[in-house]
């Protein structure tokens, strides 16, 4: 029997986490919404979701003390996944919230999507692989994912970038370094493609000793 590893979805009071939980359950995890630091540090995998805006997410993480728990989990070597604004807060800061520091797991900035395009990008778009990564295992090109965002991490050609999408130019869609994965799109809203990405993460969780 395939194990259902415990994946803690960090619940710091922001947004609708129901779909994320159900998505990870579909992908084979024992997915729990939790604000319990003990559970987050014990879980085999940790997910940091986030919607809305950078500053309220950082404020809520700070208020609940879960900012430290998230940074510790991202540095623990256990599989970790940031989603949407939960990806953006892993960076140093954001154009959206000057003066608000991010968690600094990645050391560059999140910027407004440039150019004469509608913001938010609210649509399905194609992931363009920047390099091979287990996040996109088992998916045939073109890989379509659902995006809702007005900002994205800078430097689409950075080494940690897994995929970009084209929205008035290359826009960072996914990054990963070591055990930390992050997606600007919403895998839990990207139908079969998204569920496969979540399953790839759960497989990475299972592979951990």
């Amino acid at each position, binding site marked *: 029997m395939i194990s259902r590893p415990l994946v803690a979805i960090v619940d710091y009071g922001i947004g*609708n986490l129901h779909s994320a939980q159900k998505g990870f359950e579909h992908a084979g995890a024992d997915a729990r919404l939790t604000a319990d630091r003990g559970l987050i540090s014990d879980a085999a995998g940790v997910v940091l979701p986030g919607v809305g805006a950078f500053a309220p997410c950082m404020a809520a993480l700070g208020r609940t003390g879960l900012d430290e728990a998230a940074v510790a989990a991202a540095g623990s070597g256990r599989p970790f996944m940031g989603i949407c*604004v939960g990806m953006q807060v892993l960076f140093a800061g954001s154009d959206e919230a000057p003066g608000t520091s991010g968690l600094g797991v990645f050391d560059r900035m999140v910027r407004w999507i440039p150019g004469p395009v509608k913001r*938010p990008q609210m*649509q399905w778009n194609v992931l363009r692989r920047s390099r091979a990564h287990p996040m996109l295992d088992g998916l045939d090109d073109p890989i*379509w994912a*659902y995006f*809702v965002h007005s900002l994205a991490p800078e430097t689409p050609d950075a080494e940690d970038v897994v995929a970009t999408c084209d929205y008035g130019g290359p826009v960072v869609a996914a990054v990963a370094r070591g055990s930390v994965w992050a997606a600007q799109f919403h895998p839990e809203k*990207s139908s079969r493609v998204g569920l496969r990405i979540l399953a790839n993460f759960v497989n990475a969780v299972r592979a951990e000793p």
Partner: protein
Amino acid sequence: MRVARIIPCLDVDAGRVVKGVNFVDIRDAGDPVELAARYDAGGADELVFLDITASSDRRDTTVAMARAVADEVFIPFTIGGGIRTLDDARRLLRAGADKVSVNTAAVRRPELVSEISREFGAQCCVVAIDARTSTQAPSGYEVFTHGGRTRTGIDCQQWAAEVERLGAGEILLTSMDRDGTKEGFELHLTSMVSTTVGIPVIASGGAGTLDHLVEGVIAGKADAVLAASIFHYAEHSIAEAKTRMAQAGIKIRPT
């Protein structure tokens, strides 16, 4: 790359899909989960559920429906209709809706748009605008509420700009002149609003053929097209619609 979305719209009453959904081999035509899953499998990009429940005490069933859909279906969905307060929005979003759409309540109290946007983010705050031609409105279109029955004296173009400023993340624009006619979208209205605002605009009202969907994106400059009857009665599949759009040079997510 700008990719047009196709959004089937389902009317729900007390948590059940009503009015004219007629797929073959469907077990329960009123089950929102079954229909949503069907549309997901068929390649719909998003779904809109329009809650026509009249009495507020039955709205709990709409929240339960949002939860049931979110349990099983992994594409974005919006719930609109009868959302009057921030708490109404909160309950639906917590239950798993990705977006809520406000209309009459936003006209009555525009701060509601800001409140939803501030608390949950612009991405989940859709403002539905029902517009009708009017010689008295500077843009030629006036905003109506209460399902198109009540005129407001508000100019549609000005209101669109205002809701963007208030924090809306998207506009669901319905032509009351065309709604239900199957004569096609009101393209002048659609392009006017879409070029006025910097947020996505969903064209609604009047789609009766696949070519209407194409026109909505090309001439109407809409970011997404909403349709009900052409899909529900299985006159056309989402795949056919996307094929037609792709033939017309519109970028779409293939089914």
